C-alpha cells in the first residue's frame, strides 16, 4: 500500500516534469504505465482497508490507554500498553449471537456474486462506450428566462443526463 502510494507520487512528479518540458505525450511507455495504474490504485485501496481491519484485532472498539501525567501512554514491565479491558469491545464479544455462520457465508457469497456480475457488465458497457467514441457536444439551451430563487436553483441542475451519460 505504501509502496504503491510512493510509486504514484513518483510517476506523477515525472509526468509533471515531462509536461513542463512539453514531451509528456511522446512517452508512450509512460502513457501505458498510467493505463495499467488503475490496478494498483484499487489494490492500494483494498490493502489499506485490510490493514485497518486486521490491524485492530482483537478489538472492535479500542479501550483508551492509561496515560502518565505528561500525556504519554503508560507501559508495564513487559513494555506493553496499559488499558482497562472493560473500556473496549473485543471482536469475540461484539459478534452477533443471532446470526449463524451459514447466514454470514450466504451473504458473502451473495455480495461476491453481485460484484463479479456487475464488474463483468461494467467492463462490457465500458468497452462499448469507448469503442463507440464521444458524440459532438450540442449547444446549451437558454434556461435563464424564469425568475425566482427556486427557478435559479433548478436551472443549475437542469442537465438531463446522469454523470455516466454526459460523455456519450
Amino acid at each position: 500500500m505504501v509502496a504503491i502510494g510512493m510509486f504514484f507520487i513518483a510517476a506523477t512528479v515525472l509526468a509533471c516534469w515531462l509536461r513542463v518540458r512539453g514531451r509528456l505525450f511522446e512517452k508512450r511507455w509512460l502513457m501505458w504505465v498510467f493505463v495499467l495504474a488503475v490496478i494498483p490504485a484499487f489494490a492500494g485501496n483494498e490493502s489499506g482497508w485490510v490493514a485497518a481491519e486486521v490491524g485492530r484485532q482483537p478489538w472492535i472498539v479500542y479501550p483508551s490507554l492509561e496515560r502518565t501525567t505528561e500525556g504519554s501512554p503508560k507501559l508495564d514491565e513487559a513494555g506493553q500498553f496499559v488499558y482497562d479491558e472493560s473500556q473496549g469491545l473485543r471482536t469475540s464479544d461484539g459478534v452477533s449471537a443471532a446470526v449463524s455462520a451459514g447466514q454470514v457465508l450466504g451473504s458473502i457469497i451473495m455480495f461476491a456474486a453481485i460484484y463479479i456480475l456487475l464488474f463483468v457488465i461494467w467492463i462490457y458497457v465500458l468497452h462499448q462506450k469507448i469503442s463507440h467514441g464521444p458524440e459532438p457536444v450540442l449547444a446549451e439551451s437558454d434556461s435563464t428566462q424564469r425568475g425566482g430563487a427556486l427557478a435559479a436553483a433548478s436551472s443549475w441542475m437542469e442537465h438531463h443526463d446522469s454523470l455516466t451519460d454526459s460523455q456519450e
Partner: protein
Amino acid sequence: MDYQLIWFVLLRILLAGYAILDGFDLGVGILHPLARSDEERRLVMSSIGPIWDGNEVWLITFGGALFVAFPEAYATIFSAFYTPFMLLLFCLIFRAVSLEFRSKVQSAVWRRLWDFAFFAASLVASFLFGVTVANGLLGIPLNERGEFIGGIHDLLGPYAILVGLMTVAMLALHGGLFLHLKTAGSLQKMFYRWIWHAWGLYLVLWNLVTMYTLVKVPRATLNFEHFPWAIGAVVLNVLAIANIPRCIFLRKVGQAFLSSSLGILCQVTLVGVALFPNLVSASNNPDYSLTIYTAASSEKTLGIMLVIALIGMPMVLSYTVIVYWTFRGKVSESIY
C-alpha cells in the same frame, strides 16, 4: 418530552417519509411491465429517474438514526432480520442498477432482462417491507439479553405474508396514481384502468389485514387507552382510502395521490402507537422487550444527534423541494 420520545417520533417521521416517497417509486417498478413498448417503458422509468435515489435517502437516514439513537434495538433488529435484509439489499441494488444500465445497450434481450430485474426487485422489496412491519407488530422471540432466538421460519407466518401482499397492492396503487400524474395519452389511459384494479385489490387486502390484526394482534389497539387521538388516525385512514375512488372517478388524481399518502402516514403512525414504548417487542416474554428507554444511547448522544437533525432536516427538505420542482409536470423525455 424527553430525548428518547423525541427520537421515537423522529424515527416514525423518517419511516413515514420513506414509505410515502420511495413507496410510489417502488409502485412504479411494480407497474413497469404494464407498459408494453420500449418507448413507454423508458417514460415510466424516467418519471422516477431524477427522484428515486433521493427518496431512498430516507431509509438510510432511518437506519443511521436507529443505530445512533437506539443501538440495542438496531443490533437486535438487524441480526434477527439478517437474511430478509440481505435479500432486501439484493433487491435495492438491482433496482438501482437496472435503472442505470437499461438504456446503455441497444438490444431487446438486454433491455428485457433489466426490465425484469426492475420489476422483480421492486415487487420483492415492497413485500419484504410489509413482512418486516408485520413481524415488528407481532413481536419476535428474544432472550433476556435482547438477542433474537427464533429462526427464519418465525418471520414468514400467515400474518406477515398477508401484510406483505397488502403492502405490494398499496404501493402499486400509490405508484399508479403517480404514473397517472406523470404520463399522458394512451399510456395514461392504461394506468387509469390499472389504478382501479390496484385500489380494488388493496381494499380487499386492507380489510383482511385489519380483521386479522383486530382478532389476532391484541396489542395493536391496546395503546388506544393511553392515546385516544389514535382513533382519529384510524378514522383518517378509512376516509383517505375511501376518498381515492371518488377522486379517481372525478379525475382529481393529484388529490387521490395525497389521500394515498395520508393513508400511508396514518398506517405508519398506528403501528408506532401500537409499538410504543417498545422498539422491539418480545413475543415470548414482555419483560425482554426493548423499549425506547432500555435501548437508547446516552442523553448526551441523543442531544448531539438532535442538533445534527435540526441542521440536516432543512437541507434535505430544501433539496427535495428543488428536485421535485425542477422535474414537475408530465415526463416527456425518456432518459432511461
